[in-house]
């Protein structure tokens, strides 16, 4: 197999991994070494599915010893197998990097022979890349569950970010679909990396030149829609992971039916892209908007509203806290207004120190008045076109139009049909419209 075929096979096998971020660490370049890293990360291209390509994301090998039923690389699958040699992968990374195609390497691997052997192979590659080729760019490496903790630690000193995939949102689903993996095996390296990062932080205070352990933190991902967990369970798990394991990111991946198995959704099921989109919206609310998981979803509403994003949903259910006065409201409350994001909230905070804000001015600051107008006043005035006493009316008005017109496509995640909305339309929606309204962003 030549390098072109290998690259194709091993990229194909790695692409279902969602994370492709190069963020979290600022590492200025040093003379004589190729590369640097910037805190915000840099995307270098966007694939046809709209996902960012930031790192060279490949498997070292797809010759897996495990047999997880949701995975394309499982042992019993009939698919071409390939492995990179460390030299090939280093050459590829360097050549791509100096042409500004990529920001670094995302190294993952199927379990070759056993977890320890796989870890050794990855370690060899990274050592060659960092020490022999003097590569100073970003490296994301996947920890292999079940490997010797000493090896995982060594990997951490070469990598910027590490991740362990939690794969499925509950232990029950794991036993069902990935019999060789278990919650303990997955959480052990995650805890180890967290402790390593904390320990390293105190070392760095003592010695400036101490080697840095996973400076960009760790992330994880889970598959959505292959198993019957509710959105509330997933969101609570996410919040727990952020709090307990101090993760930088939790990624969600809508299940693509790539394999046929009696424990999995039928191959014809469309991937739950809208649900994934809602989960990311909620994830942003947790990380940047000061929301708690319990506020977004509760026992009575265990799933997201397909028609209303989580922030609008919260605002409509807490209409008694609105409207707020933009010229005086605290920043934390501004963040909770639908139509005001982190950027516009910060702009409002800085602009209102110098001038009194009116609606015209808010528009210039980037506030989406279409949604925000129901929840704010400017110098005591409101421009809400609707009476504010019935939250259901407001909810109807700020509903996402794209979905409302495709009433026929509406289903809750569990498959029960939602009442179609009464909407007069001059054009009957085509099947293509339905697909388009469901394509979300990762």
């Amino acid at each position, binding site marked *: 197999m030549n*390098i*072109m075929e290998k*690259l*194709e096979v091993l*990229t*194909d096998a790695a*692409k*279902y991994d969602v994370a492709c971020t190069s963020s979290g660490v600022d590492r*200025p*370049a040093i*003379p*004589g*070494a*190729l*590369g*640097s890293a910037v805190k915000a990360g*840099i*995307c*270098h*291209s*966007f*694939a*046809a*599915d*709209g*996902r*960012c*390509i930031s790192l*060279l*994301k490949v498997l070292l090998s797809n010759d897996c010893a495990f047999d997880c039923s949701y995975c394309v690389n499982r042992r019993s699958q009939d698919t071409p197998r390939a492995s990179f040699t460390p030299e090939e992968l280093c050459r*590829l990374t360097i*050549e*791509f990097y*100096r*042409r*500004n*195609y990529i920001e670094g390497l995302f190294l993952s691997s199927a379990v070759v022979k056993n977890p320890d052997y796989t870890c050794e192979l990855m370690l060899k590659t990274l050592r060659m890349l960092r020490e022999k080729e003097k590569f100073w760019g970003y490296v994301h490496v996947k920890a292999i569950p079940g490997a010797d903790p000493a090896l995982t630690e060594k990997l951490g000193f070469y990598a910027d970010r590490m991740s362990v995939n939690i794969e499925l949102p509950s232990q029950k689903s794991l036993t069902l679909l990935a019999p060789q993996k278990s919650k303990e095996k997955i959480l052990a390296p995650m805890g180890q990396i967290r402790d390593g990062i904390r320990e390293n932080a105190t070392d760095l205070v003592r010695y400036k030149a101490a080697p840095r352990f996973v400076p960009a933190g760790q992330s994880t991902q889970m598959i959505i829609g292959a198993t019957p967990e509710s959105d509330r369970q997933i969101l609570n798990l996410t919040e727990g992971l952020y709090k307990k394991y101090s993760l930088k990111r939790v990624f969600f991946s*809508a299940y*693509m039916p790539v394999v046929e198995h009696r424990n999995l959704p039928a191959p014809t099921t469309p*991937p739950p*892209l809208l649900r994934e989109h809602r989960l990311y919206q909620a994830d942003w609310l947790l990380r940047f908007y000061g929301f708690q998981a319990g506020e977004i979803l509760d026992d009575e509403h265990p799933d997201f509203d397909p028609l209303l994003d989580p922030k609008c949903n919260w605002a409509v259910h807490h209409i008694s806290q609105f409207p707020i006065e933009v010229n005086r409201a605290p920043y934390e409350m501004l963040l909770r207004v639908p139509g005001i994001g982190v950027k516009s909230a910060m*702009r409002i905070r*800085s*602009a209102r*120190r*110098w*001038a009194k*804000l009116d609606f*015209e*001015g808010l528009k*210039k*600051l980037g506030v989406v008045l279409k949604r925000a107008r129901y929840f704010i006043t400017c110098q005591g005035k409101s421009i809400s076109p609707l009476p504010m006493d019935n939250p259901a009316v407001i909810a109807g008005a700020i509903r996402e139009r794209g979905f409302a017109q495709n009433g026929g496509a509406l289903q809750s995640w569990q498959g029960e049909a939602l009442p179609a909305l009464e909407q007069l339309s001059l054009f009957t929606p085509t099947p293509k419209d339905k697909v*388009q309204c469901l*394509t979300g*962003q990762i």
Partner: protein
Amino acid sequence: MAANLVYRYDGSLQGFLCCVAQSFFDKAVPAGIGAWDDPQATLFPIKEVETDWQLAKRLERSITSRISPEAWDMVQRGFLTCMEEKELRLLRFILLGYKMGPRVARLSTNEDVHALDKALLYLKNEAHYHVEFLRFTDFGGFLGAVITPNNTILPLIVHHFCSRLNTEDFMIYEKTHQMGFLHRKGGAHQFFQADHIQFPEKTDMEKRCQALWRIYYDAAAVEGRENPKLRRGHMPMRYWVNMTEFQRG
């Protein structure tokens, strides 16, 4: 008080500052300010403004101390943008600054400040797009890249590549403004002006590397999630012409 006059200057930042000074001397805002090579014809009488480096330096000091260093920075960067009537807008921004003082940079609801803010955001975003999407080609020993941005972004992106690729010889050519940048291993670097640049033929090694990248690019997309609109949103099609992954056949 507007004067029925159009200023013509040499297109440099110093020349523009002299136009600002000229408008102070005339005690009026001109109807327009344009560069020598500006193709636009006008019916107004034209006043030619000489570039005086001393005067420009004086104005720079004055803006920095009497308005704020931040406002000077905005003027400097604003001059790199492709904002419509940028000279006139910047002039009005400076005049407003003399009236309002340092808070001018924060008056984002004023029409001129808003327009400048928007243009600066576009400049910053376009510079970032080029940090992301600029593609080098290896011409056997040195790397070359051609870019076609709307704003003059080259001065804003070179420091990124200088530090990152300090082990490489490279050249970036900005076709729109016929301006280039040359960097040598070890840190020597310079800007230059050139109407046209002829790169050598691609080597076989380079062709293979580009083919590998195209294979990677195609394989990285998940079938069943195609989303051309999202891709265009993140990566405007205007930049595709200079990108390796779209140069096929």
